Structures are given as structure tokens and as C-alpha cells.
């Protein structure tokens, strides 16, 4: 009895295992491992990042590639699972990736960046959590600066523009939200503003009635809303229903086009500091937006911009380094400043420091009548 | 030399207002084969469950080898030396006949630890094979119990009840649903076992012929009370019994 089960089990298992992976090498191509969230909770972000990057790659390849090599992009879907993302970065590297593009979710990036570092493969990430560039990893580069740089830009807005004495913070209780929340609470302390309500919620939360009721009851003058897009939309709707008077202020996500689409009128009046927006009043952005809409029939979001810029980082960094060499690429990128006039794919004047952190100008955006209205430009810091 | 294995004294059990068992007393001596009969609703099953410790009698006591069984868990009762069979088929269908039999005996051999680290068969293969042969299931030893015929499963069920070498075996309608050939076989095996090992049996059964030919003594219950007690011959000619069955 056991005998044939043994046979079955072992042969079947062996068959599954026995098939080895045989990566094919083609000459004159530059392999890129695009490891992003194409399914699971991060799918909207990851898909936009990918589409932005693919658009850039198409442009790059059409104009002769990178140092004469055509970009050959392999996509790896992490399913928004950090451990899978780690394995996939490893796979991409095993398959000869010159650069890794992704991941967008910080909880994934913090895990998989160790793999790229060990292998010495430059990684261009869409993540914004502060700790990404705090690991001393010389191979990680951002496409959008970390929350620890973005949120302080808001301090002045809370303190001076709004004159807030008491604020509330609603944040998503995961890697992304916690990072932003910690920076924000620290900033408020420094600025002498009281945080009177501190309300975490689950990723994917749908019912914000209690959260909003608490904020309303706390008597806050302003609310910092640090949630993902969909949760932001639900939050805005509930806040509008309960007629919250306090100003709702966000970082990046709160005034995104997706949020406006989903929240409808409830989004009006929301303000956010945005590092990247497809609606930035700059010629480079308009060109990008038009190209993206033509390619995909929908509007790009900031993750699409990150993907687009990421692909050009690979191109410009390699060309600056003067050779297709991962070590040289990383060294060149540290301390590099690119002007958008000269390097249009970068869209805005941008500098990277030794930790892979970047800086560039940013915008304040307010939602008026269902439209993003770009307010003042915040200088690079 | 006679020795009391089971003693039931003044058991009463009622459910709501219905008296299922009323002041029933009897004793069973070592080596006896006692039949417990009665029309439907006479309280046989309730009495049986009181003896098994599954039901708490309202009054009275049941002792096995001098120990009260009230509230005792089935596994402890078994450890005390009480084996049983079930009305419905009660084997382990996805295990072999041999494993069924070994499982029936293993808890009586060694300790938890020796059963974990000792021999896989708990040293019972020889004994189990003898038991299987005794019940004429030898050719089915390595078959799954679930693939056996109904009658064969009944035999296996009985064999399992004997595996731990119990002093008392309670048989719950052993003849139910078994065909005549198999029934004769079962009866003959039970009698042989009783003769060879002196094991005490208490049998609940509907099949009169089976009870009459198997048992040495019979107790008849009607409406929760004992109405007659005696040898099969005495019962057969007892007018009260005939009334209870025909009138009931």
C-alpha cells in the first residue's frame, strides 16, 4: 500500500523539481527586471509604475536604446507579497538583470533591496518610506523622495498657512503609513502643534465612520490624512458626510486623480503636498501626460511618473557612467544632478545624494470643483 | 467460586416525566451470557447506557467489578475491562482489518511513551492475528475495513471488543442486519470465546432465536421494569413475557 504512494509522491515531486531554469542570453540587449505589484493590494500602484516605465522604455528603444543596447524588460509580479518580491528580485538577478525597477510598496522594497545589494545590482524603486535610504545600501535609488523629506515640507503649511494649533492624523497602519505617521508626529512636536487625535486604520479599510467621528470630536483645526488612494477616497466621503470643517491635508495621495474620481465632490477642498503630479504646470509633464494617454487611454498618476522617470534613470545614469557597468552606474548616480532641460526624461531638475535619496521641487495641490489645481511650488530641499 | 462482574442495583432513570427505567436490579456473574430483551421502548437502551456510564441514573448504582461507573468516560470504562460493540457499524473504515484490531488492543499495552517510541504494532501483531483467525477474517487481514461486507464488519466489530481481553463485553444488537449464515457463524464464535476465556457477556437483542440459543440467562424488561428473569426455557414459557410482547 505504502509502496505505490511512495512511488507516486516521489516521482511527482521529482518531476516538479527536476525542470531546471535555463535563462537565455541575447547579445546587445540590456536586461531589466521589472519587479512590481501587478496583483494583490498594490496592483493599482504597481500597474501604473509598470506602464510608465514601459512607455519610457519604448521611447528609449525607439531612440537607439542605452549605449546602443535595447532594453529588454522582464516583468515579475510580486502579488504585493514582500517575500515573493524578494524571491523575484533574486530571480531577475539570476536571469541577468542589469537594473531592477521596482518595487513600489515599501514593505516589499525594504526586503528585496537586500538581495539586489548583495548582488551589486542597482535598484530603482518607487517606494517613499523613509527607512529605504536609511539602510546604507549603495545600490538603491529613489524616483520620488522619501516621506521624511516630503512631510516636513508640510509643516510650514500647517503652522503658517493654516495656523493650526491642534491637528489630527489618520494613517494606514502598515509600513507605508507608519513611516509617514512617525515623521509627521515628530514634525508637529518640533513645531509645537498638538496632535489631538492619532487614528490608525487597516489597509483596505472601508468604514471610516468611527475615525471621522473621533476626529470631529477631537476639535482639531486640521487633519493630516496619510492613506492609500482608495482609503483616502472613502475617508473623504465620510468626512464630507459628517461635515468635518477642519482642513484635510495629505501627502501625495490625497489629491490624486484616482481619489478625485472615486470621492467625487467629497474631494473638494482637500490639499496635498505632491512631489510628482501629472498635472504639474510644466511642459515636460504635459508631454508625458499626452504620450501616456495616447498609449493607454487613461490618465497617468504619480506612480506612472515614477516608473517613467525610473526608466530614464537607467538610461542617463549608464550614459553618465560611460559604460554598462553596475558598479560604475551606482557610483555615478551618487551626487548626480540632472537638469530637465538637458535630460527631458527626468521631467524636473533632480539630484541624488549618497544614500540614493533624491531631491527636486514639489507642489501644493488643492482640489477645486473636482480638478487638481496646482498652487505654489515648493523648492527642492 | 462465582464472582460478580456487573452489579446493577435499583436503577431508575426518567426523562422529563417519563420513567424509562424503574428500579431495576440484577447481577451478572463471571462467565455468564446474559440476554436483555424487551419490546421497543421497554428501557433496554436507557439501561444499557446507564451501565456504560453514558447516562446518569436518577437513583441506584452500577458497579463493574465493584467499581462505580457513574460518570466514567468510555475510555476509562474500557480500561476497567469492559468491551462493547455498537448497534451501527463501528469499525475504522480507512484502516486495515489488522490495524483495526491492533488499535483495539494497543491502549492496554505499555504507556503513552512506550507507544510512541516502542514497536509500531505495540507488540500486538501475533495476538491480533490470532484474534483475526478466531473470527475467521484471516483472508481479509490487509483489506480496508470499509471494503468488508456488513456481516464481516460485524465480526470485526466483535473481534475489536475482545482484543483487550475484557472481563465483560456488552453486545448491542449484534445480530441486527446480519444474514443467517453469518449469524450462525457469529453465534458460534461468541459461544466458543465464552467457553475458552470465560468472558462475561451482556447482550441486547431483538432476534429472539439468537438470544435464546446464545444466552444462559435472560432478563425481560417491559415499561422500564424487570418482568421476568430466568433461563431461555423459563422465559419461553413465561406468560407475562408473552403478554408483554403480544400486548405491547
Amino acid at each position, binding site marked *: 500500500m*505504502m509502496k505505490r504512494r511512495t512511488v507516486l509522491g516521489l516521482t511527482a515531486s521529482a518531476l516538479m523539481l527536476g*525542470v531546471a531554469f535555463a535563462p537565455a542570453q541575447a547579445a546587445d540587449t540590456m536586461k531589466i527586471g521589472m519587479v512590481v505589484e501587478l496583483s494583490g493590494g498594490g496592483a493599482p500602484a504597481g500597474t501604473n509604475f509598470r506602464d510608465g516605465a514601459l512607455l519610457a522604455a519604448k521611447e528609449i528603444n525607439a531612440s537607439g536604446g542605452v549605449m546602443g543596447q535595447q532594453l529588454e524588460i522582464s516583468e515579475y509580479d510580486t502579488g504585493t507579497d514582500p517575500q515573493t518580491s524578494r524571491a523575484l528580485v533574486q530571480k531577475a538577478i*539570476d536571469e541577468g538583470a542589469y537594473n531592477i525597477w521596482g518595487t513600489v510598496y515599501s514593505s516589499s522594497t525594504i526586503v528585496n533591496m537586500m538581495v539586489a545589494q548583495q548582488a551589486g545590482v542597482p535598484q530603482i524603486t518607487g517606494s517613499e518610506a523613509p527607512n529605504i535610504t536609511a539602510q546604507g545600501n549603495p545600490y538603491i535609488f529613489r524616483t520620488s523622495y522619501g516621506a521624511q523629506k516630503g512631510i516636513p515640507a508640510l509643516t510650514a503649511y500647517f503652522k503658517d498657512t493654516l495656523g493650526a494649533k491642534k491637528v489630527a492624523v489618520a494613517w494606514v497602519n502598515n509600513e507605508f503609513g507608519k513611516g509617514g505617521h512617525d515623521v509627521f508626529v515628530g514634525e508637529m512636536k518640533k513645531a509645537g502643534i498638538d496632535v489631538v487625535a492619532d487614528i490608525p486604520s487597516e489597509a483596505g479599510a472601508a468604514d471610516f465612520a468611527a475615525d471621522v467621528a473621533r476626529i470631529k470630536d477631537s476639535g482639531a483645526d486640521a487633519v493630516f490624512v496619510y492613506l492609500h488612494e482608495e482609503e483616502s477616497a472613502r475617508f473623504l466621503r465620510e468626512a464630507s458626510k459628517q461635515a468635518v470643517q477642519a482642513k484635510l491635508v495629505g501627502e501625495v495621495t490625497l489629491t490624486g486623480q484616482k481619489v478625485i474620481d472615486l470621492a467625487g465632490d467629497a474631494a473638494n477642498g482637500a490639499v496635498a503636498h505632491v512631489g510628482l503630479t501629472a498635472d504639474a504646470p510644466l511642459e515636460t509633464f504635459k508631454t508625458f501626460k499626452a504620450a501616456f494617454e495616447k498609449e493607454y487611454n487613461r490618465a497617468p498618476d504619480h506612480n506612472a511618473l515614477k516608473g517613467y522617470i525610473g526608466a530614464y534613470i537607467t538610461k542617463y545614469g549608464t550614459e553618465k557612467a560611460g559604460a554598462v557597468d553596475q558598479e560604475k552606474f551606482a557610483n555615478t548616480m551618487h551626487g548626480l544632478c540632472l537638469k530637465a532641460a538637458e535630460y527631458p526624461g527626468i521631467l524636473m531638475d533632480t539630484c541624488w545624494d549618497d544614500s540614493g535619496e533624491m531631491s527636486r521641487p514639489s507642489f501644493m495641490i488643492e482640489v477645486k470643483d473636482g480638478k487638481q489645481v496646482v498652487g505654489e511650488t515648493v523648492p527642492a530641499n | 467460586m462465582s464472582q460478580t462482574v456487573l452489579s446493577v442495583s435499583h436503577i431508575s432513570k426518567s426523562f422529563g416525566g417519563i420513567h424509562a427505567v424503574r428500579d431495576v436490579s440484577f447481577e451478572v456473574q463471571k462467565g455468564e451470557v446474559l440476554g436483555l430483551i424487551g419490546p421497543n421502548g421497554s428501557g433496554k437502551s436507557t439501561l444499557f447506557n446507564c451501565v456504560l456510564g453514558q447516562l446518569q441514573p436518577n437513583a441506584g448504582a452500577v458497579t463493574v467489578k465493584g467499581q462505580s461507573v457513574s460518570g466514567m468516560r468510555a475510555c476509562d470504562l474500557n480500561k476497567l475491562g469492559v468491551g462493547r460493540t455498537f448497534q451501527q457499524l463501528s*469499525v475504522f473504515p480507512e484502516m486495515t482489518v489488522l490495524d483495526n484490531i491492533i488499535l483495539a488492543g*494497543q491502549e492496554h499495552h505499555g504507556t503513552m511513551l512506550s507507544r510512541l517510541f516502542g514497536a509500531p504494532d505495540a507488540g500486538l501483531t501475533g495476538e491480533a492475528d490470532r484474534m483475526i483467525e478466531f473470527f475467521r477474517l484471516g*483472508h481479509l487481514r490487509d483489506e480496508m475495513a470499509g471494503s468488508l461486507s456488513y456481516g464481516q464488519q460485524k465480526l470485526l466489530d466483535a473481534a475489536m471488543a475482545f482484543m483487550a481481553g475484557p472481563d465483560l463485553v456488552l453486545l448491542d444488537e449484534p445480530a441486527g442486519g446480519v444474514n443467517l449464515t453469518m449469524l450462525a457463524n457469529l453465534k458460534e464464535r461468541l459461544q466458543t470465546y465464552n467457553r475458552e476465556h470465560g468472558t462475561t457477556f451482556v447482550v441486547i437483542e431483538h432476534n429472539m432465536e439468537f438470544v435464546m440459543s446464545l444466552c444462559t440467562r435472560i432478563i425481560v424488561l417491559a415499561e422500564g421494569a424487570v418482568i421476568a428473569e430466568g433461563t431461555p426455557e423459563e422465559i419461553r414459557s413465561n406468560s407475562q413475557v408473552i403478554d408483554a410482547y403480544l400486548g405491547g
Partner: protein
Amino acid sequence: MNAIPKWLWIALGLAVLIVAPIGQGNYFTLILCSWLMFTIAAMGLNLTLGYAGQISLAQASFMAVGAYITALLTLNGIHWIVAMPAAVVACFFIGLLVGFPALRVKGHFLAFVTLAFNTLVVLVLRNEDWLTGGSYGKFNMPRPDFWIFNTARKSDVLGIALSSNQKIYYLCLITFVVFAALMYGLIRSPWGRAFKGLRENPIRAESLGLDTRRITLLAFAIGSAGGGLAGSLMSPVVQFIEPNSFALVHSLRILLMVVVGGAGYFFGPMLGAAVVILLPEFLRFTQGYYLILYSVAVIILMVYSPSGLMGIGDRILSKLRPQRVVRGDMKEGAQL
């Protein structure tokens, strides 16, 4: 087929597993590690579910407990060889506690209790930052150094250059082989028979002197310890753990491995884990459709062979075998 003895098949399988990572990339090696880890967890669940018949949707939470205990201990300088047993023992006792509801409820209700337990564990891991690192998790757990075999570093072993990942694979393999051997011994022992008795007919088992309460608790405890062992491997292999890696969906995945492979078959979990972990690799070319195809395959499998892949194989093989002679006896009993 019966001409080849069982041990030869096992030796052959082992040989394949020993040479499997040689010359392979890190990714393949890590996938194999993942297969081994999940096989261990699934074998644990197979004991609870397949042999003892107690459903548990909490296996991932035991992996979590195992992984976090190992991570916290090894990050504080305690060697893995000490941390691992500590994790396993802790899971054994927590599993014992989780088993108590099984004494009161069965089936679906037990599924819900264990499901709730799993989610609660994840919430605690996420919210108790001071201990668990919260949603940041724990990372950079050291890989153990076994003096001549330091899994943290690349080196030559017996003249073969082995990477750190390859060496950690061998650690997984050794753990797996030892665990499988112990499990096999357990299944064949009277305890294994008692577990099966509990699954098949608890009332009958109890009447044969089997303490079904004790055996139910043990089924949970030992199965959970298997989850803990898998977790304690995950800590040095993946070197990163965070609460969501142990969410309910992962318990469901482990359950899927057990059932797809064939619950109650010794080799079922190995096959099931291979299917659940490796199949997506082969179906990756189907892009986003693979989960759709996969779920349809599972539905079809469950509809046509509830006993899993091993069940299908069993059926095919028994059709190939000559018909049993003994079936003639059944006529006798079938007359009724």
C-alpha cells in the same frame, strides 16, 4: 513497479534533492527552500487534519510564532540550534491551547475558531511594535554557523563551492529529512493509529480505551510544532519576517497544499506543496491568468477527486492492479 523496493525510491528522491541546487541560481535554490519549509508546515497540518481529522486554519500563525521566536533569539546572539527547539516547543504548547476548542466543537466551527486565532496572532504581531517590530517586521536575522558549515557565507565544502543560499538549502533539507523521518515513525507508531482512529470514528476509539481528548490535543500540538519548525527555518532563510507573511491567506495556502496533495497520505503534503509553490512558476507565462487557471484546477480536482492528487494516483494504480480475489467473499455478506 513493486519490484523496486520502497527504500530505493526514497534514496533516489533524496539523491535528486541533494543535487537539485548544484549549479542552479539563487532563485531556484530559494524556491526549493520555500518548498521544503512549506512541506514541513503542511506535514504538520497533515497530521492534525489528514490523520487526526481536526481542521485547522491557523497553521500560518504557528509559522509566525516559530519565525518570530527564532528571529528574536537569533538577533540577540543565540544560536539557531538553540532557538529552533525553543520555537518548536513554544508552538507545541500554544498548539495544545488552540486544541482545546476542538474538544467542544468540530468541523466548520473549529475552522472558524482557528481562523480567528490566526488573524488575532497577526494583529498582535502588527501592533506590539516593542517586541515584534510591528509592520516593519524583523530583518537581517543571521544565518547559522555550524563551525565547518557556515551557512552565512560562501565557501568550499568537500571541494564543492557552495553559496550561502545553497548551504541554507541543505540546512532546510536536513531539517526536512529528520522531520519527515520522525513523522513517519509517528504515523506508523500506535500514536499514528490512534490519530487515525480519532479521525475515522472517535466514539468507537473512545470505547476501545483511547483517550480521545488527549489525542486530539496532541494532534494539534504536534501539528503546530511542525508549523513552528517551518517558521524557525523561514527566519534564517528569508531573513525578513513581517506580520502579513503569516496572514490567513497563507494558512489557506497550507491547507490547500495538504488537500490538493491528498490529506492523510504521507507524501501528500510534499506533492501538494510542490504544486502550490512550483506550479505558479510554470504558469507564469500565462501572466495574470495563472491564478484563474489555478483556482479552476483546484475546483475541478475537489469536485472529481476530493482525496487530492494522491487519491487520483491511487485510483489509477488500483485500476492497473489485478482485481482482488477476496471480493468473492462479499457476496456472502451482501445477501443481508
